């Protein structure tokens, strides 16, 4: 039997509710002509999935490991690698089900897909185009990679001082209580084919996730991934405290080329992340592609030139950081804005993230080792809010599509901005609170921080019994 699963939100709908959602899947499942996915779309989605894996291992792992001191290189690599593996299994066991099936509240999904039950090689998932589907298995692995990279982002915030076991335990809790609900709230919907007429559309919308219903736009995960992880990182940095010697001794990246490789692979992989989120291979995804490259280039240039003007030299670390800031900011926006809007978002994000990292962090004095907050949370917020601005067709954006009318709806920037604020605020509060509770719990169970002497010696030998270089 074909099953039908929903896909990321592209159509925010007026928040009228009517409980029909539960019926959708079976109805479509019974349909005579079950939708057959296009092999071109499927090929691209598999490629995209591979790219998101590349982003994480080795991409993100290298980006982070290059920035720490030689004695902590392997600890970062291991935290990323093991978190990735752990979450992959949790995703198969219960994560996918809780994120992407219909639940009884708009905050979390149900248990229909526990242990991947009911997921077959012929079940399909909806895209953003009516009548176009991709294999549900493809959707499962694509979203698995999103679920895996997000917790990995957090480890940069408390790098060089946390216990390895504490990382893993924290990840299990945070993934379950923060990532899965956020993914469901933002991306769960019934798919475009449910929007046959106004009544059906309202009914369908009522079954969607909380923030989808609010109309918040998040094309590829600005809220679900970056704000979500970024605020959890800040909470972690605050709760673990500063590294020994922070602020008094220099802690330069041990290997800047490694940072550059990591940043480049993140960029390369991000095309899977952003463009893959379009779920098809067509002209529209071509635009998403262009946005992803242009915003990033603009942000890297903006950060570098700002450094150049302000400090006298543009640094490689700055260019890499700027690129990531641009990637983060364009993530929620990439399917909603035009290329010139993307460039504008990139420039703004590059400058604001630099400010966050170089000034705001100094000002407040927290030790977010690798700037998870400054880049991912700040960049994510910038992107989420600017999406409302540059989505405007008047500014070259796509506007918001009305699946009932099958046309682009009139655009209301103020309303959209409010919807975006809903998304940002929900992510900040929900993930922040979950992170705080989770760190507290882990602290009680096993303690968060390694002993001072271990921190001095470095986590590689202490926690992993190895040295990076011999």
């Amino acid at each position, binding site marked *: 039997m074909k099953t039908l699963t929903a896909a990321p939100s592209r159509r925010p709908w007026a928040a009228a509710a009517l409980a029909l959602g539960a019926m959708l899947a079976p109805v479509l499942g019974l349909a005579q002509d079950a939708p057959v996915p296009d092999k071109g779309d499927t090929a691209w989605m598999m490629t995209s999935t591979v790219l998101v894996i590349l982003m994480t291992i080795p991409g993100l792992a290298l980006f982070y490991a290059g920035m720490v001191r030689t004695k902590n290189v392997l600890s970062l690599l291991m935290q990323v690698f093991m978190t990735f593996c752990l979450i992959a299994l949790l995703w198969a066991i219960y994560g996918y089900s809780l994120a992407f099936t219909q639940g009884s509240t708009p905050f979390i999904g149900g248990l229909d897909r526990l242990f991947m039950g009911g997921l077959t090689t012929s079940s399909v998932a909806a895209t953003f185009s009516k009548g176009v589907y991709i294999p549900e298995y493809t959707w499962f692995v694509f979203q698995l990679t999103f679920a895996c990279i997000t917790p990995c982002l957090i480890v940069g915030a408390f790098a060089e001082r946390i216990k390895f076991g504490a990382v893993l335990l924290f990840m299990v809790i945070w993934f379950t209580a923060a990532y899965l609900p956020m993914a469901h709230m933002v991306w769960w919907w019934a798919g475009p084919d449910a929007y046959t007429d106004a009544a059906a559309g309202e009914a369908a919308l009522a079954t969607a996730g909380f923030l989808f219903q609010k109309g918040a736009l998040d094309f590829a995960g600005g809220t679900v991934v970056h704000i979500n992880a970024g605020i959890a990182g800040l909470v972690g940095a605050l709760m673990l405290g500063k590294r020994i010697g922070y602020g008094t001794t*220099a802690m330069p990246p041990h290997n800047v080329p490694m940072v550059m490789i990591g940043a480049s692979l993140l960029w390369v992989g991000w095309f899977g992340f952003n463009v893959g989120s379009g779920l098809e291979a067509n002209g529209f995804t071509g635009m998403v592609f262009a946005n992803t490259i242009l915003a990033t280039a603009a942000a890297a240039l903006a950060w570098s030139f700002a450094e150049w003007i302000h*400090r006298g030299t543009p640094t490689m670390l700055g260019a890499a950081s700027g690129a990531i800031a641009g990637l983060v900011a364009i993530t929620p926006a990439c399917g909603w804005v035009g290329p010139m809007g993307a460039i504008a978002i990139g420039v703004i994000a590059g400058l604001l993230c630099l400010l966050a990292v*170089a000034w705001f962090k100094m000002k407040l004095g927290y030790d977010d080792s690798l700037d998870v907050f400054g880049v991912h949370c700040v960049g994510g917020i910038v992107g989420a809010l600017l999406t409302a601005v540059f989505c405007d067709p008047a500014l070259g954006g796509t506007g918001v599509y009305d699946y009932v009318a099958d046309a682009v709806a009139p655009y209301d920037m103020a309303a959209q901005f409010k919807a975006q604020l809903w998304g940002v605020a929900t992510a900040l509060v929900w993930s922040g609170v979950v992170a705080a509770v989770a760190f507290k719990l882990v602290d009680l169970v096993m303690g968060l921080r390694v002993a001072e002497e271990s921190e001095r010696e470095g986590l590689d030998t202490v926690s992993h019994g190895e040295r990076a270089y011999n």
Partner: protein
Amino acid sequence: MKLITAIIKPFKLDEVRQAIADIGVQGVTVTEVQGFGRQRGHTELYRGAEYRVDFLPKNKVEIAVDDTIVEQVIEAITNVARTGKIGDGKIFVTQLDQAVRIRTGETGAEAV
């Protein structure tokens, strides 16, 4: 015998080695070191935060020589390693009680 230890700028290493070989010194041992002195280091930037790096890469050249040519060696090094700019480095001379060539067991002047 004396042990002559010269701290020099790395890009002068080849010239120094050549110069003392010309005098007839057959061996030297070189170590990469970090020097701190009157010469100022550079500033490094990491994500907007500036760090002053005061240690500069230098080469330490150690040469065991017979007493007779100590002055010659010092002069040779001084001549080629000098750029006239701050940070050119130092030469230190210490007394060497004994020297042994491991391969042959020879000692004293024959060993160096």
